[in-house]
C-alpha cells in the first residue's frame, strides 16, 4: 500500500521527502556524535593522528594561501583608499578584514576542500568496502574510531590553523604595506591591534570552531552514508566539500548577525 502511495508521488514531493529524511539522518548523526564523544573509550591516539593530518599537514597550504590573501587584499584595497588619501588606514582595514572574516573563512574553505573531501572519500571507501561493518563485527565502535576522532580533530585544528592564517596574512599585508608605504613593523601592528577588539578575536575563534566541526561532521556523515560502490565514494567526497562550504557561508552569516547584535549592545 505504501509502495503504491510512493509511486503516486511526483518527483518534486519525492525530493522534499528525501531532503527531510536526509535532515533527520544528519540530525541523528550529530546527536550520536555528542552522545559518543563523552563516552569511553577515548581514542586519543587516533585523535592525535587526525590532528597531525588535518592540522600539521595542512599548514603549508594554509600558510601560503594566507600570505597570498594578505598581499593581494592589501594591494587591491590600496587604490580605493589612496583615492581619498587614506592609505595609512590599510593596516586597520586589513586587520579587520583578516581577523573578522577572511582568516576563518579562507582557512575553513581550504580545509573543506583538502580535509573534508579526504574524510568523505576515506570513510566512504571504508563503507563501500565494508570495512566499517568489519569493525563492528570485531567489537570496535566504528563511529567513535572514525567519526568522533575526525570531528574532534577538525574542530580543534581549524581554530589553530586560523591563528596561523591570521598571522601569516597580516605578515603578507605588512610586506606589501612596508614596500609601498614604508611603514615599520611596530607601527603596522599597533594600527592592526588598534582596529580590532576582543570580540573580534573571540568571534573568530568561535566561528573557526564551528567551521571545523562542520567540515568534520559533513565529511564523516557523507562518507558514513555513502553507497553505490566507488561512484558513491566520489559523490561522498564531492558532497562533503560542497555542503561543508555552503554551511560555512550560512554559519558565517549567522555568527555575523549575532556578533553585530552583541557589538551594538
Amino acid at each position: 500500500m505504501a509502495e503504491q502511495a510512493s509511486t503516486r508521488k511526483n518527483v518534486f514531493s519525492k525530493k522534499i521527502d528525501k531532503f527531510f529524511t536526509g535532515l533527520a539522518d544528519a540530525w541523528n548523526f550529530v546527536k550520536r556524535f555528542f552522545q559518543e564523544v563523552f563516552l569511553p573509550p577515548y581514542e586519543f591516539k587516533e585523535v592525535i593522528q587526525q590532528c597531525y593530518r588535518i592540522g600539521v599537514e595542512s599548514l603549508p597550504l594554509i600558510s601560503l594561501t594566507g600570505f597570498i590573501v594578505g598581499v593581494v587584499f592589501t594591494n587591491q584595497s590600496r587604490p580605493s583608499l589612496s583615492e581619498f588619501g587614506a592609505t595609512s588606514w590599510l593596516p586597520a582595514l586589513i586587520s579587520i578584514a583578516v581577523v573578522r572574516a577572511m582568516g576563518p573563512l579562507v582557512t575553513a574553505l581550504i580545509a573543506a576542500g583538502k580535509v573534508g573531501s579526504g574524510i568523505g572519500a576515506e570513510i566512504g571507501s571504508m563503507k563501500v568496502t565494508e570495512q566499517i561493518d568489519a569493525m563492528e563485527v570485531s567489537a570496535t565502535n566504528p563511529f567513535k574510531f572514525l567519526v568522533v576522532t575526525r570531528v574532534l580533530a577538525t574542530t580543534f585544528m581549524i581554530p589553530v590553523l586560523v591563528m596561523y592564517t591570521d598571522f601569516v596574512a597580516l605578515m603578507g599585508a605588512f610586506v606589501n604595506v612596508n614596500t609601498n608605504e614604508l611603514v615599520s613593523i611596530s607601527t603596522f601592528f599597533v594600527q592592526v591591534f588598534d582596529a580590532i577588539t576582543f570580540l573580534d578575536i573571540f568571534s573568530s575563534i568561535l566561528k573557526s570552531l564551528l567551521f571545523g566541526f562542520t567540515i568534520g561532521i559533513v565529511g564523516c556523515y557523507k562518507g558514513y552514508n555513502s553507497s553505490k560502490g566507488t561512484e558513491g565514494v566520489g559523490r561522498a567526497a564531492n558532497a562533503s566539500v560542497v555542503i561543508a562550504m555552503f554551511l560555512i557561508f550560512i554559519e558565517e552569516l549567522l555568527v555575523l548577525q549575532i556578533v553585530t547584535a552583541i557589538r551594538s549592545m
Partner: protein
Amino acid sequence: MIKENKRAVWVGLFVLIGIAILVVGILTLGGQQKKFVKAVHLTAVFDDVGGLQTGNNIWFSGVKIGTVRKINFFGDSQVEVELSVEESVAEFIRKNSKATISSDGLIGNKIIVIYGGTTDFPAVEEGDKLEAIMPLDTDKMMETLQENNKNLVDITNDLKVLTSKMAAGEGIIGAVLTDSLLAENFRTILVNLNRASANSNKMIADLSAFSVKLNKKGTLINDLVTDTSMVSDLRATLDHLRTTSESTEALTKQLAEISKKLNTTDNSLGLLLNDPEFAKSLKNTLEQTDSATFHLSKGMEALEYTWPFNKGFKRKAKASGN
C-alpha cells in the same frame, strides 16, 4: 610507534605555537587598548554625542589615554559618558579640564578629547565630572554654508545686472568703457595725475634734501631740534612772552576802560571831548583869553616906555647887547 610519537610531538608543537599566537595577540590587544591597566573613571555629560560608541578612544594632548566605558542617558535628553582613563595619566589631567567629542581624522572614529586644565587646580580623581564642551555641529556648519551660497547667488545676480548695464554704456563706468571722448578725458586726467605724482616726487626729494639740511649740525634749526639747552631757553622765552602778553592784555583792558570813560560826559576829559556846549564855551574863553593876551601884550609894550619900568627894560637890552 616512533612515527606516532613524532606526530604527537609535531601536533603538540603546532598547537603550542597556535595558542602562543593567540595569547600574544590577546596580550598585545589588551595592552594597546589599556584593558589590563589600572584606570580612573571620569564622567562628562553631553547634549549630543554624535555617534560616539563604547570603546572609542580618549585622547589627551594627542596621546591615547583610555577608552569610553559606558554611555547612558542622563536627565531629560542628555548623555552621560563614562571615561576610563589610565591611572598613571590622571595626575596630568586637572579638575578644570574640558572634554569634547572629536574625530580621529576626517573620516575616522569618534573620540573624546580632554584638553585645557591649569596647574592651580588639583588632578582628577575617581568619579570626577569633567566639563563637556559641545563640538562644532556639522549640520549648523552646512546651514551657514547654505546661507553663504544664497548670498553668493545674490551677489552674482547683482554683478550680472551691473555688467549688463556697463556693457550697455549706462552709468559712469559704462560711459567710460563705451564713450571714447570720456575715455580721452580720463586719459588726460591720468596724465595730469602722473604729472602731479612726478611733482610730488620732486617735492618729496626737495623735502628730503631739506631734511638733510635740517640734520646738518650747527644750523639753527638743527640746534632747535637737537639742542636740549635751547629748548629750556625757548621755554623761558615763551614764558616771558606769555607774561608780557598777559600784561599787554591788562593794559589793553585799562585803555578800553579809559576810552570808554572818554566817550562819556561824566568826567572832565569826556566832557571836554564830547560836550559841544562846553566846547563852545571853551572856545569863547580861549578867544577872550586870546584877546586879553593881545591887550596885555599891548599893555606890556606900553609899560616899556612907562616910568619906572622903562629903566628895567633898558638894562635888559643892554645886557643882551653885550
